[in-house]
């Protein structure tokens, strides 16, 4: 039960670069969403991406997982320059994500949503599925074991069979994290996983993110507005403003960077 990402990352040591973006520029018509952005993510770190609304954070994730194709710049992944790829091909390379606005499969249960996250690990074909008994059933059961581990990990056993549409907002966010984790990603992109949560839920989510980092050694890119959370759980921080990078470093370095203070921390936001 491996996908292509597992073998790509196998020769990367912790602390070495997993992904880097270099001189990325992206515009929509006349609007420049990203201008000449470069930064890297090293294996096993939590890398926060912060900045005011409209700074280009989500656009950056969309470039990394292939929804947007930048006019300029390159993406390097596991030591190789990445050619233009479709999002589903990038998923098979071990990059998973959650969305700023929840994007669960509304018609499915928690269990099925997370099982769907195992897609890149499942290989049986239509004919095998038509007859079910044998490889298809076997694969389903093996992957179910993995999914149950994730359900236990996220403490969502009681909502296993609940249609996700019926779940409260905070739990939906958690299920979406579960779906991304089910891919056993090399790189996990989280777009505002704590937006709209109360303090308790934020604490839970922070704990899960740190546990993922610790237990699975997953590299994590995290977009987050709550500075307290960012300072607590991230190893390094990139700061964007109006599509430009204005800061990059440890939480402490960023906190004391004058450009960042002016552009971001000084500006009131929600």
């Amino acid at each position: 039960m491996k996908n292509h990402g597992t073998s790509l990352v196998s020769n990367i040591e912790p602390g070495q670069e997993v992904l880097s973006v270099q001189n990325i520029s992206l515009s929509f018509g006349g609007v420049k969403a990203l201008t000449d952005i470069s930064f890297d993510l090293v294996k096993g770190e939590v890398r926060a991406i912060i900045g005011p609304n409209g700074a280009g954070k989500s656009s950056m994730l969309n470039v990394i997982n292939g929804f947007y194709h930048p006019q300029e710049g390159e993406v390097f992944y596991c030591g190789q320059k990445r050619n233009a790829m479709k999002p589903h091909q990038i998923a098979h390379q071990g990059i998973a994500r959650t969305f700023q606005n929840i994007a669960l499969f509304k018609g499915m249960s928690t269990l099925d949503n997370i099982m769907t996250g195992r897609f890149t690990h499942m290989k049986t074909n239509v004919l095998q599925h038509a007859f079910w008994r044998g490889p298809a059933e076997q694969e389903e059961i093996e992957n179910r074991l993995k999914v149950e581990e994730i359900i236990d990990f996220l403490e969502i056993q009681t909502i296993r069979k609940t249609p996700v549409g019926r779940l409260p907002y905070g739990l939906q966010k958690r299920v979406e994290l579960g779906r991304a984790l089910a891919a056993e990603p090399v790189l996990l992109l989280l777009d505002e996983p704590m937006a709209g949560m109360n303090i308790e839920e934020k604490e839970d989510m922070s704990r899960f993110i740190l546990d993922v980092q610790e237990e699975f050694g997953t590299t994590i890119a995290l977009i987050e507005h709550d500075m307290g959370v960012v300072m607590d759980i991230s190893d390094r921080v990139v700061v964007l403003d109006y599509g430009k990078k204005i800061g990059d470093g440890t939480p402490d370095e960023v906190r004391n960077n004058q450009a960042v203070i002016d552009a971001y921390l000084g500006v009131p936001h929600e």
Partner: protein
Amino acid sequence: MFYRQAGDFKSSYREDLQTFALKQDRWAYYALLVVAFLVVPFIINDYWASAVLLPFLILAIAALGLNILTGYCGQVSLGTGGFMAVGAYACYKIMTSAPDLSIFFVVLLSGAVTALVGLIFGIPSLRIKGFYLAVATLAAQFFLVWLFNKVPWFYNYSASGQISAPERTMFGWAITGPNAEAPVRYLFCITIVVLLAWIARNLTRGRIGRSWMAIRDMDIAAEIIGVDPLKTKLLAFAVSSFYIGVSGALFFSVYLGAVEVGEVFGITLSFLILFMIIIGGLGSILGSFIGAGFLVLVPVLLKNVMVNGLGWPTDIAAHIEFVIVGGLIMGFLIVEPHGLAQLWRLAKEKLLLWPFPH
């Protein structure tokens, strides 16, 4: 008081993956199979076969097919009648050009031909969605009917423009043609129905079914999980068209025997199948059967009551029937958009915990 299972307790994932999770359901299903194969063939007569059972079984296959495409994969189609016509004409051409081929394989091959045609018509679905896709499939519907009317090769240049099924036998029994007996035609159809329903259930219970539902529910999220939208939609189109093609082949060869394409496979049939899955339940195998049963039975019942019971003229009864069936469909769309299968499920959920709900 009989014993029944209370609550949902499973000890292995394999058990949890069973089609009929409850013991009662499993036994009900086996009992139904026994009745369908060992009892019905002995009591079936021509009226029951042609008024109820054959149309129910054959249209249920089409409903299964459309449900895979629309209910599971979220791609609306109004071309079902046209694709059934593809199945029917493929069946006719294969029957007449390969007279020795077993009718069973002829029917499956007709499905395969329809799957190919469906695949081609499915290609635009990558670019167009929802309402526009519905319009595109509507265009396919009219095009296909026009094609089978216009090109004499399809009806072997017969003067009437009709196609009619020659006699084909299996194990010495006539399945098609004027000598085919009701029990034999019924057994042939129900065998195919059970086989195809089992396969539909298998396809929708695992990875493939989830990839269809993922595209239906949220296509961008499906993509970032690794689902290729084009491949997934095309597979749904192909599988769905296979079912619809088999249904069309049976409708022509086993049920009607002779067919005039515009009359039988027109847009009305497309809508009938669509209503079946809406009433029965989108994204439900059981729903496809309930919907087909409902829409085949209700008109028969109404007709019996109005014409035979109350002695009304047939044409007035036919109009009233339209109104009543139409009203029922609207009622369903408003009251239970998830169809009869959902009502059944909810009732069961309640019963499972009764008399101690919490």
